[in-house]
């Protein structure tokens, strides 16, 4: 018998499995009463953030406790929203450092481009997002706010020890794994 020709039979034929499906749905949803809830009650329970989470930006120091930042401006260039601004200055021994270093966190999108661009591992993103403020001006972080005392994620890296730049107490060719500079005035190879 062609069921489509008999709407009554067809309806009755499909009604029973449809009702069963409805009841099964009700049962499934009801059994969710005994499931664990997925919600994290945030202020009371802390959220797990992975170590590489991109949160609040910091400036780190090298293992000797000196500022890592050499004010190369690569982070400011890489920043897609232009929220980083800094000014280069030089110490007496020839090291470069930022005279001021300013991040406007009300513009920052926490993309991590600055961290990738940084040649000295100075600027790093941390797993911390709790930086709400009532006053928007408070979101402009100065160098004192950004600078921390430790080396951050990169424990051993020391830019001036591996770089060829001459500073006070370390001349060219004296860096780690560095050969002495070529004497261009001789004819010998």
């Amino acid at each position, binding site marked *: 018998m062609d069921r489509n020709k008999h709407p009554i039979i067809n309806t009755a034929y499909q009604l029973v499995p449809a009702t069963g499906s409805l009841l099964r749905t009700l049962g499934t949803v009801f059994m969710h009463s005994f499931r664990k*809830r997925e919600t994290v*009650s945030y202020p009371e329970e802390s959220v797990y953030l992975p170590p590489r989470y991109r949160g609040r930006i910091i400036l780190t120091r090298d293992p000797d406790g000196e500022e890592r930042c050499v004010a190369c401006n690569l982070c400011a260039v890489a920043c897609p929203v232009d929220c980083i601004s800094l000014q280069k200055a030089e110490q007496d021994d020839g090291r470069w450092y930022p005279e001021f270093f300013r991040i406007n966190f009300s513009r920052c999108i926490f993309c991590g481009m600055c961290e990738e661009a940084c040649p000295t591992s100075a600027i790093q993103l941390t797993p911390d997002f709790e930086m709400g403020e009532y006053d928007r001006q408070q979101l402009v972080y100065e160098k004192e706010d950004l600078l921390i005392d430790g080396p951050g994620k990169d424990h051993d890296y020391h830019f001036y020890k591996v770089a060829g730049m001459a500073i006070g107490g370390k001349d060219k060719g004296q860096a780690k794994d560095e050969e002495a500079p070529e004497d261009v005035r001789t004819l010998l190879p």
Partner: protein
Amino acid sequence: MSWWTPQLTAIFWGMFQALVILLGVVLLGAVLTVVERRFLGLWQDRYGPNRVGPFGTLQLVADMLKIFFKEDWIPPFASRGLFLLAPVLAFASLLLSFLIIPITPGWGVADMHIGLLFFFALAGINVYSVLLGGWSSGNKYALLGALRASAQTLSYEVFMGLSLMGVVAMAGSFNMREIVAAQENLWFIIPQFFGFVTFLVAGVAVTHRAPFDQPEAEQELADGYHIEYSGMKFGMFFIGEYVGMVLVSALIVTLFFGGWHGPLLPPFVWFALKTSGFLLLFMLLRAALPRPRYDRVMSFGWKVCLPLTLINLLATGAVMLWVGA
């Protein structure tokens, strides 16, 4: 104290009962708005409102404070009188229906011999709240919601009445107390199973609860007939929906589940337990089932439920004649 007659005592006792039931039902409807959100949260693996007060118990107070202090806006393009009338009608007609529900042997407002029909009359009047509210808002979405609501309620009230006629025939009365008394030995859910199923479907449809909430479908109609309402006028529609839910649950308990009958526990506890069970079912339906397309809702009513109730009524009549003869 010659003027203090027993008749006067009876009148005051009746008024006291009516007042307690009225306040109880309104309070229950208000509490249900929060309880439902907690249960929906439970079934969707989240918490729901749990911040105000211990375990979110004061959420209701917060909601009420908010809704009382909201701007009570009447749109300039609205038909003012009807716009004001509609929420009152929505609230009052459902509350009045509690008149007929016997809660325990001693409690219950009115004992009318047309009991059940009184509910149908008020359910019929309740349609106008949606219809007039939707029309007087002067809003296309509201009008569409009102049209849907009227067509849906009209269709489902037809077999809502018919589904209960089996119960009436078996009890031999429209009176709610006599219907409860007739279920002393056997609850009507067993002989009138299809009547129960169709009444449940119709009850959900008439109170515009999900999955039959086409009149206020958020996704298509942006809340339908009460789109222009704000403040406490919206609150009356909102609480009215929950009062309707309580009403249909209480009716199902009274008509199909033996009312206050039950072993060991006192009558009121039985009544409350059964009613809250059906309130839970209403919430579970909303948590679990999607909203069908509108024409499917209508054709389900006319092509499945109406024939089912007619067959059920016919079979009930035949069996009763057979047993009677």
